[in-house]
């Protein structure tokens, strides 16, 4: 019986737009969350979101269906993000941050009906998001993949193209970098 990954690979090799649309629906929030964590700017993240799916269409024949589609998708998004960040760096543009008037980039899930709990959750999420933004991007990426996307260490290594030991070291350093900010704010 054909696996879901194999079916996706077949659809992508045919450049079937229906398959692409189903995938966009399935992975929309996950991809957006990853991009937003990487660039901390909704407008840029939305541009990269569109560009990622166009790239998936163009390079679909390269997906062999042996690895999870989510990891392959995020690796494309990652490469585009790196391109974008490098261009900004070369252009000497200041680090990106959302307009302060725009409100928080991330919204917490409404887990409880209590207004107090919602407010507290919102505040905590904003604190975490703020603390995360201050962590260097190289560590922030693995923190997000491990703790938010719940990816295995091996999957993160494959996605980022670095050895497993490097992933672990980045995670430890990421947690260490997060520690002072968390202790101050939580």
């Amino acid at each position, binding site marked *: 019986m054909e696996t879901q990954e194999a079916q996706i690979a077949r659809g992508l090799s045919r*450049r079937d*737009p229906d398959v*692409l*649309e189903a995938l*966009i*629906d399935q992975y*929309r*929030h996950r991809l*957006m*969350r990853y991009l*937003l964590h990487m660039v901390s700017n909704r407008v840029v993240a*939305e541009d990269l*979101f*569109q560009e990622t*799916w*166009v790239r998936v*269409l*163009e*390079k679909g024949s390269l997906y062999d269906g042996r690895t999870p589609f989510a990891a392959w998708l995020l690796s494309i998004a*990652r*490469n585009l993000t*790196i391109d974008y960040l490098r261009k900004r760096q070369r252009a000497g543009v200041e680090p990106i941050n959302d307009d302060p008037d725009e409100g928080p*980039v*991330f*919204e*917490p*899930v409404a*887990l409880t009906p209590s207004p107090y709990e919602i407010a507290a*959750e919102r505040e*905590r*999420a904003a*604190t*975490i*998001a703020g*603390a*995360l933004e201050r962590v*260097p*991007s*190289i*560590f922030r*990426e693995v*923190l*997000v993949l*491990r*703790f*938010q996307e*719940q990816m295995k*260490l091996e999957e993160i290594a494959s996605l*980022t*193209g*670095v050895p497993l030991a490097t992933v*672990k070291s980045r*995670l*430890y350093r990421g*947690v*260490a970098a*997060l520690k002072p900010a*968390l*202790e101050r704010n*939580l």
Partner: protein
Amino acid sequence: MINDNDHESGLAPNLEHERAAGLLAEQAIEGIEQADARWLEQHLAGCLECSGYAETLGLARQALRSISVTASDELVAATKARVRIRSLELRERTARAAFVGLSAFFGAVLSSISLYYAWPVVRWLETHFELPAIIVEPGFVMAWFLPTMIAAAMLAAMRTQARHAEAVAASEEGSKGESYGK
């Protein structure tokens, strides 16, 4: 505040805090062994500082999971439209390349077959008008295969363009990874 249990490992108190912080991170990242988990549990039970950090780390992980980011319906609709348009463009490009390729192939076959029948006419022209064979014959062959050569050149240009685009994408990807974020 540290209770007596904390010193059972034989480590100095500050080293015990370091060990606890290390184990907490390890537990979150890749998991820890049962013996370490027991030691950590004991240490946390008696150490306010470390248990506070453990709670903070737990809250951070929980908050990370609870942060919700949504891609709006408008964005998704715009993305789908863009993907559809690009898909059409790619299909057209593939169809065009196939058409040019077939044209080159059939042009070569037809030119070769028809040259056999046209050759006596070339010979007659050479004789009748006393034209130099060294110029007329290669010139005629060139003219006869001109449409095929044009189609082949177009096909080659299209392939070169596609390969160039792939090479650029591959070189961009090759230079990523380790250098990122440094």
